[in-house]
């Protein structure tokens, strides 16, 4: 897998941003490069990249999160300087909160992030999310995220899944939808992501990226 220096992950609530950010960070770390994960989620109280602090530490990945993330205090305060993180790390993965509401936090850094060759902003889509089943709605949300964050998306990630009820057909049935979204958005498909335990054969042109599933409920960890 090839990643740019800065990978920003955006998309609809629950489209799988955190799981994708976690996989990308771990894959970068495995190459021996330094990587920082920025949990920029200001809207989500649980199921966020900050949950994986210990795993990141083991892999030598630096985690930067809002100071009160997972502390039970409901204040989305951010006390870090993105510029210094970008200087001190080979790679940076930014996990942005859901929808346009979550993308607002990115806006502070738009001057730095726009129009740079080493920055990519991926828009994650899931055909099986009710509000983004329709292609026009999917694009509309991307535009909302762009206008709120003042950063332009550069590529699409098709992460269509139905959680534990994802089968090979679930992924295959989404390829056409992802194609349509890319065509309408005038953006390239960067990856088709899916659970690596799934036995599914995906053509190279859809850029298959099998992933581990880290975001789980307690009873599914047994």
């Amino acid at each position, binding site marked *: 897998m090839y990643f740019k220096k800065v990978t920003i992950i955006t998309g609809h609530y629950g489209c799988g941003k955190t799981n994708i950010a976690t996989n990308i960070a771990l894959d970068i770390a495995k190459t021996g490069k330094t990587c920082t994960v920025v949990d920029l989620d200001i809207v989500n*109280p649980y199921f966020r990249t900050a949950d994986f602090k210990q795993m990141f530490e083991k892999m030598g990945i630096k985690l930067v999160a809002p100071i009160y993330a997972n502390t039970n205090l409901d204040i989305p305060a951010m006390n870090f300087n993105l510029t210094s993180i970008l200087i001190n790390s080979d790679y940076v993965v930014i996990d942005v909160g859901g929808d346009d509401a979550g993308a607002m936090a990115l806006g502070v850094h738009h001057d730095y992030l726009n129009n740079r060759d080493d920055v990519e902003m991926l828009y994650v889509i899931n055909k099986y999310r009710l509000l983004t089943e329709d292609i026009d709605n999917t694009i509309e949300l991307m535009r909302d995220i762009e206008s709120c964050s003042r950063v332009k998306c550069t590529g699409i990630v098709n992460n269509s899944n139905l*959680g534990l009820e994802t089968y090979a057909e679930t992924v295959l049935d989404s390829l056409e939808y992802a194609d349509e979204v890319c065509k309408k958005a005038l953006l390239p498909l960067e990856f088709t992501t899916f659970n690596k335990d799934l036995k599914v054969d995906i053509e190279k042109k859809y850029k298959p990226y099998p992933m581990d599933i880290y975001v789980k*409920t307690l*009873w599914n960890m*047994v």
Partner: protein
Amino acid sequence: MSNQSSPKKHLMKGNEAIAEAAIRSGCKCFFGYPITPQTEISAYMAKRMPKVGGVYLQAESEIAAINMVYGCAGSGVRCMTSSSSPGIALKAEGISYIAGSDLPCVIINVQRGGPGLGGIQPSQSDYWFMTRALGHGDFHALVFAPASVQEMVDTVCDAFDLADKYRMPAVILADGLLGQMMEPVHFPEDYDFNKNTEKPWAANGHGNKRKHNIINSLFLQPDVLEDENFKRFKRYEIVKKNETKAEIDIEEDTELLVVAYGSVARIAKAAVDMARKNGIKAGLFRPITLWPYPEKELQKAAEKVKKVLVVEMSMGQMVEDVRISLKSRIPIEFHGRTGGIVPTPAEVFEKLKEMDGDDNA
């Protein structure tokens, strides 16, 4: 396995599923106020309601929101409000007025830790509050305890129907974990939300064609007020007889019965499965309605068991209903975590091992 023949599914967050299910149940007005961990309900309603010809209104406070529900319910329109523990406490007065006026509405409580502002992590410490003391005065609300995102949908549909049928408020008692987690769901396509919408009591304009309807909870004559309470409690007896619901997962030789509701029931189920694999004869009883409590179902499920373990994210609240139901005939133990700490399947399994060991010692 294939999902091709199964109904169309969507991946949804618990909170979103509640909101979408309400819309599909004919909820026309939503009055909300944000609080973690249920804000997605409000956010979803704000986006969807205008598109389906409904009303979304963010009130200036929880108290305002519940009183808007009161007015809306009085006009016979299906309506809903949602909040999390401390926000529900603020709504208590309004809920009592709604119950005292015999009005249907749906109230969502996505519980967080308490007392006071508590925390924003999941909790089940509003059990007594929802089933015993949802406001001042003698009254009850229907209380549903979904344990999956699919059941969020199913119980919301039931809540609207039964609230209308019995003219009383209905509560969905979820918790932060259920509200935030994501699972595939399907929506019943043949759901007919018109089946209970005849509301001759509604104050929706008499057009000089009938006597005007009055929505009121003030009865200054003692005998009139007592009569109102008697009538209401007669109705509650019918509800208790007809509307209890539970899921029972026991085997012929079950010795240890775990009782849990909501997200904790999912954890308990994982622990019961671990126990069974290790030769412990465990089973699970999961109430789906908390008021009325499925007393008879529990009595039947516990008939042959030796011990009962109640697991909750509280200091022990539903355990009281288990004791009342089983009349302390068999030993009942309790395992609870609070503060937003969710019990793990492993720790519940440990507790089961301990109880099983005591028995065989």
